[in-house]
């Protein structure tokens, strides 16, 4: 790791942020454990294991933070260096939109546009190939599941599928 990408005390240290998120989660788990009641050692309650797991999480998170501060760690930028970071962002956006559309529109009306978008936006597939694949595969899967395996996929408000 070059000096420019390995930072110690700066906020751009990705290891530091990873540790801080772990610490926050650990504190949340400890609080949840306490709320659920710990019980006693000869009759542990619902929060017993959560509480002690939370403590362990905090210990490991602090270890990561200490290592990040003393030894440094790569910056966020260096983690994505030479990577086409826009591509995963596009896929995540498509999947999020799909998640919102799945229930109201149903499987067919949401998965066909998802396939077209993914095929055209990741590394563009020719339209004459992208359209048939995007139509045939989800429709074929829907038919197979519904008529052969007897599994009903969401049909949405239009009742398509």
């Amino acid at each position: 790791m070059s000096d420019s990408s390995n930072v110690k005390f700066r906020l751009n240290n990705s290891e530091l942020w990873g540790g801080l998120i772990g610490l926050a989660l650990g504190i949340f788990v400890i609080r949840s454990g306490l709320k659920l009641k710990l019980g006693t050692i000869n009759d542990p309650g619902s929060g017993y294991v959560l509480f002690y797991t939370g403590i362990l999480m905090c210990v490991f998170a602090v270890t990561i933070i200490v290592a990040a501060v003393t030894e440094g760690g790569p910056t966020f930028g260096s983690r994505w260096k030479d990577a086409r970071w826009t591509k995963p962002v596009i896929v995540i956006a498509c999947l999020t939109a799909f998640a919102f559309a799945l229930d109201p529109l149903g499987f067919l009306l949401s998965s066909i546009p998802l396939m077209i978008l993914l095929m055209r936006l990741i590394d563009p597939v020719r339209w004459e190939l992208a359209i048939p694949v995007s139509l045939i595969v989800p429709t074929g899967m829907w038919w197979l599941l519904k008529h052969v395996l007897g599994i009903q996929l969401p049909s949405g408000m239009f009742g398509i599928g």
Partner: protein
Amino acid sequence: MDTLINVAHGFGVALAPVNLLYCFIGVFIGTLVGVLPGIGPISAMSLLLPVTLSGTPESGIIMMAGIYYGSMYGGSTTSILVNIPGEAASVVTCIDGHQMAKQGRAGPALGISAFGSFIAGTFALIALMLVAPKLASVAIAFGPAEYFSLMVLGLVVLTFLTQGSMAKALLMACIGVVLGLIGLDSITAQPRLTFGRMELIDGIGLVPVVMGLFGVAEVLLNTEQVIKRDIINAKITHLLPSREDWKASAGPMGRGTILGFFLGILPGGGAVVASFASYALEKRLSKTPERFGNGAIEGVAGPEAANNAAAGGAFIPLMTLGIPPNVVMALLLGAFVIHGLQPGPLMITQNPGLFWGIVASMYIGNVMLLVLNLPMIGMWVQLLKLPYNILFPLIILFTIIGVYCSSNNVFDVYVMIAFGVIGYFMRKLGYEPAPLVLAFVLGPMMENNLRKSLILSQGDLSTFVTRPISAACLVLAVVLLIGPLLPALRRKRELVALDEGA
């Protein structure tokens, strides 16, 4: 004699036409996902977990097991021909296998890999047949303290073997335990971490978590790279290795088989560790270690035998103790649970048809794999030419369908997408998902056994150290936890550190 009768009974189950069909589907899909980089046995098994519901438990488990050991065969094809590991256990095969292919020896490399896999797979099955019933009779004496300590050991071994910082791996394991505890408390029926959502009362499903962390996250990671494939286009000939090749490979194959089998049994171990360990061993034993990395056939034979033997050995802790030693076995445990079965010490005696049927099907599956991987090699080579920009959207669509079918619940699709995004950022920041998933499965079992042992011992913590098996597991776990502080052990850990996610 009893064993032979049981095996005959097992073949009776495995040779039923429907089970033969499921076995073929399993090994075929296993080879397919092994060949295709970016999708491994974990994704394929979670995708097909709901399909197992449509048949008998025997058929479902036979298919799932077939996917696992089938992927071990298929992974080597991609490693040798494309220099990209088809799945994680074939990473080492790339080193010498692809060099052999470049030198025009792709045929012998593929041949020795398939024969080595077959021999090791068969050995592992014989050992599984002999060891599992004996271990099961010992395991009946296991109490909650032993189970708890063994699971702790399994998790620590996996975190020890995971790439990168051990603190990160342990943090992941803790998060996995917490995620596993979401839902109703099995003892008090109190809802935990459900945030008032009815969907979380039964906890988070294994399938959406695994599909998100391994399927969607893998696609996200792959889309940000331009994947270049250096496919060997020359016609593949001489698949049957020569006498010299056999002579050079016999020793590595034998050693790899034994080493792989024992590493497979180890909780937290598995095929990936076995292949790395075998490669390191062969290089160390070789009189000409400089040949390794330049097309040494020993570098293909040893690791390929080791990963297949480990795949067989990994069934032992699951079948005899009910404890999955790795993520793949955790999914297989999921398949058992879906059918209302609990693998463990009593399964072999209470459900002999299932146990011996699975073992016998693995013999048949190994023969099918030999046929699939040698005479049909041309078909897999064609498949390697499928463009990624078509493959990735298809994988995403199949994961969505697989997750929805596992529960008929749109909420699980949301969970999968969320874990896909989380998994992507985890990998980017150097946090491996394997300890999280294994802890997610083991978490509720660990909690149950911990609470039971504390109740039984009336709060006496010494119960964990006064019982010999429990004490031995905990001592080993402590050694592995403090081990990385010692430079010599840290170097060894870095040598065998693995990426189970691939």
